[in-house]
């Protein structure tokens, strides 16, 4: 059985590579629609990492909400504004080099500090099963106030989006 766990771990690194690869594609591709599809692949990779973290409910919510709702919105926006986005001109503005250098420094600094910290792993919570029922209980239990505020924020955001996007007849 040892080989299977080895397979599972390599599986994680493979998904991580695929996700990072498609994330790089999102940032560098010229054609915006290809970027959106690369982003979808990246989101799928993130959903797969949730599965590795034994958060199935989150993985399904991610696929349903992120890819189903947000990406659909994004693709609609890309299509509506596609006539102006000419691909001939370079897609990145002048700050690309300094930004890249800064980020490289930031990464090196973060990795150095993060790997040095001895995380206190709590083995009990590693295998604790979390399914929709427990999440639901907590959402309705201890986190009911943020839950209500979120729904209010959602309503306001959607109404605002409709007013903003509406072409005044």
């Amino acid at each position: 059985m040892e080989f299977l766990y080895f397979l599972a771990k390599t599986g994680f690194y493979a998904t991580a590579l695929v996700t990072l690869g498609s994330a790089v594609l999102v940032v560098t591709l010229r054609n915006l629609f290809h970027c959106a599809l690369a982003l979808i692949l990246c989101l799928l990779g993130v959903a797969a990492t949730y599965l590795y973290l034994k958060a199935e409910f989150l993985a399904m919510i991610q696929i349903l909400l992120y890819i189903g709702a947000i990406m659909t919105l994004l693709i609609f926006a890309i299509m509506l504004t596609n006539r102006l986005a000419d691909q001939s001109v370079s897609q990145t503005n002048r700050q690309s080099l300094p930004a890249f250098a800064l980020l490289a420094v930031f990464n090196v600094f973060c990795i150095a500090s993060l790997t040095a910290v001895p995380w206190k792993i709590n083995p009990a919570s590693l295998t604790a099963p979390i399914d929709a029922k427990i999440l639901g209980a907590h959402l309705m239990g201890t986190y009911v106030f943020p839950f209500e505020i979120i729904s209010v924020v959602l309503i306001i955001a959607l109404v605002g989006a409709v007013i903003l996007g509406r072409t005044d007849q």
Partner: protein
Amino acid sequence: MTEFLDQIFIIAKNGALNFLGVFLPDWMILLARILISVVTLVAIAPVVMMYMTWLERKVLGRIQNRYGPNRVGIFGLLQPIADGIKMLTKEDLVPKNADKVIHFIAPMVIVIAPLLVLAVLPFGRNLIAADLNVGLLFFLGVSTFGVIALFMGSWSSKNKYSLLGGMRAFAQMISYEIPMLLSVVPVILTTSSLSTVAIVEAQLQGKWFIFTPWGGFASLVFFLCGVAEVNRTPFDLPEAESEIVAGFHTEYSGMKFALFYMAEFISTFAISGLAVTLFLGGWDGPGILPSWFWFGLKTLILILIMIWFRGTLPRFRVDQLMGFAWKVFLPFTLGNIFIAALWVSLPFPGNFIADTIGITVILTLLQVFNRKEMPKKRKYLCAN
């Protein structure tokens, strides 16, 4: 005997695995166990699709007082194979300034979505490929995949008609996905579990959800949203030949077009299978016949109803199509969740009365608010 027949596939699979176990390491056996169910599903789905096209052409023929295909094979049984060969030999056109990469990938991605859904369907007693405890959510998540793949197809072929068709299909599938999602919530509410196997177990011994007051209407809404999700008549505007050439798969020919076709039929099978699991008690049926037979029979009946729709109903106009989803289905399913909550919380006599009152209130409210759109009673002058 019936127990043996009922579990015949499981016994066959275990037999094969024990046989393999002799000379394979045990972790390989675990992989083989998964592989067998995956391979059978991926092999069965196209065969089911082929013979659904045959069934559809025969039944549609009979509805229109003519024979269906009966030349190839005894009752036209080899017709799907003939269609397959025809599709394989047809030339595969790619438009000049189409987006080559996406145009090539789209048919592949659109077939993946319905195939993934089959993994979650409980075909018989412990005859399910992947018993996830988020099975239902998996189905709804994956069905959004078909929407994205459909848009990839229509956008990449850079053709006005396919873009228009793609836009309409996109809008239709999104606006019918929400009522579908909400019509499933009452089922989750009563069985308090997302796994499809638990849902079927909650409906054993004939206590199907379709007989409960909220279940009957929720199954109707789910089934109609399923028909819309699959782009079949009367919601087949996006690929209607009369409106916009052929909608999103205008620029596809040969095997790629066959893949779009296959995706539609496999998702028809998957959605009727799911409707059976959610509302018609999955594999629940009198013990004499095996459990997977009952699942097959009920799914076949639902598929026949969808074909029956195709033989009778005219097509919706675009605005009626959208209006129907947002003005009739959505408010009804929202109210239905409340009624299902009443059904679960109240004791036996109370919940029937409460539910019937609730449903009549909702239906009258719907009729009142949709008064404008409802077609007036036409008075034909030469009627008498």
